[in-house]
């Protein structure tokens, strides 16, 4: 039976939605950079999800829907605090033209070596240096969301997710190399 009222719909997805608290908190933590703000963000996300439960389409990805609410909530909060989380960072710059093959080979071998030696702290610091947009796309990809779902969360065309993700990861690799030096 399909729940009719918003309250019934809210109750029907409640348990499933709560199962994503850790996943949502993790993204919130990487967006806000601290636990206190992440808690507020997740709490506000669930409050909005509860109010908007009637808009959730059964059979679609609940996790992706919650991520979208969390991201929109974060953008609202950031606007209120006059932070612009979407500009700056290495990933907003077009990737450099490929260097000559010999130079590229030496650089890439060194990169592979440093990628193998990474520690958690380096990865976290490098990720935090990406723009909010790039960080979100990298994390959503790790969460296993499809390109269509990522596009819905960050509010862009499906076709641009692929290039934005590639650019974000390229920037992350560049930062990680810097940390390894």
């Amino acid at each position: 039976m399909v729940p009719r009222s918003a309250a019934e719909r809210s109750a029907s997805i409640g348990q499933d939605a709560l199962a994503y608290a850790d996943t949502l908190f993790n993204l919130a933590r990487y967006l806000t950079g601290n636990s206190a703000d992440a808690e507020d963000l997740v709490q506000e996300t669930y409050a909005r999800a509860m109010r908007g439960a009637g808009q959730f389409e059964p059979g679609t990805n609940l996790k992706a829907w919650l991520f979208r609410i969390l991201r929109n909530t974060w953008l609202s909060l950031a606007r209120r605090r006059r932070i612009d989380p979407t500009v700056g960072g290495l990933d907003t710059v077009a990737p450099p033209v490929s260097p000559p093959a010999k130079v590229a080979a030496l650089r890439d071998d060194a990169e592979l070596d440093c990628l193998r030696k990474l520690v958690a702290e380096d990865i976290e610091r490098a990720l935090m240096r990406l723009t909010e947009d790039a960080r979100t796309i990298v994390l959503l990809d790790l969460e296993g969301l499809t390109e269509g779902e990522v596009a819905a969360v960050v509010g862009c065309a499906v076709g641009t997710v692929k290039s934005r993700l590639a650019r974000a990861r390229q920037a992350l690799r560049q930062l990680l190399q810097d940390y390894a030096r």
Partner: protein
Amino acid sequence: MNGSAMDCSEARLHLLDDQRGRLDVALADPLAAHLADCAACARDDLAERLLTEQLERRLPQHAAPLALKRRLAAEWAAPAPTARPVPARIRRAAVLAAVGLVALVSAMAVAVWVGRPPAADRVVAEAVTDHLRLLTRADALDVRSGDVHQLRPWLTSRLDFAPVIPFAGDAEFPLRGGTTEYFLDRRAAAAVYGRRLHAITLLVVGRIDDLAWPAPGRPLTTNVRGFNVRLWQAGGLGYALVSDVDGAELAQLAARLGG
């Protein structure tokens, strides 16, 4: 670029699709040919794989504090908020009323349920519920080991049947551990595999003659509320595999498990 049909910039755009198993079939051969010819792109492919592996293994995962989880659970159980703030006294009463209502509805459901063999959708729903229960429990895994030879004896000593865990895990689907879990009215074995940051639960149920489990050799694949589920039967045991990973990935693990 070494003369193959795909150039370097296009190849690099498709590397992740290839690694995630979602590359367009028509692009598979041109990409493979390009990677075979172009050492720079082949290295880039390796670097991308290493980056994913390191992100999955080493990026710190921040879990929600328990206090936040409790707050969220209490708020979701209460009625939807209205424009005017509700006094705490009334909110507490509403929570109690909601809990009472849930208990009443559950009791009625149990009363209706008793004596009737569960249909396949009930079996699927229970598998998803068990998976969610394991996800939400902080101490979900009693055995935190990727060694199936350690897990299986532990499970056997706590169940009235000997569960068979047909796959010991590998780099793509590492075995994280296991525990026992109630499946409807009986205890089942639960093994948890990983896939990137996701958990995949395998439930092994010993007594299934009174449940609507798919017949041997006729596995059932379905999707419930965004969770992919596969049920099958082997050696008289019922198997349920549940996760939010996509259907293709779940099918890969099911194949390793013989389901």
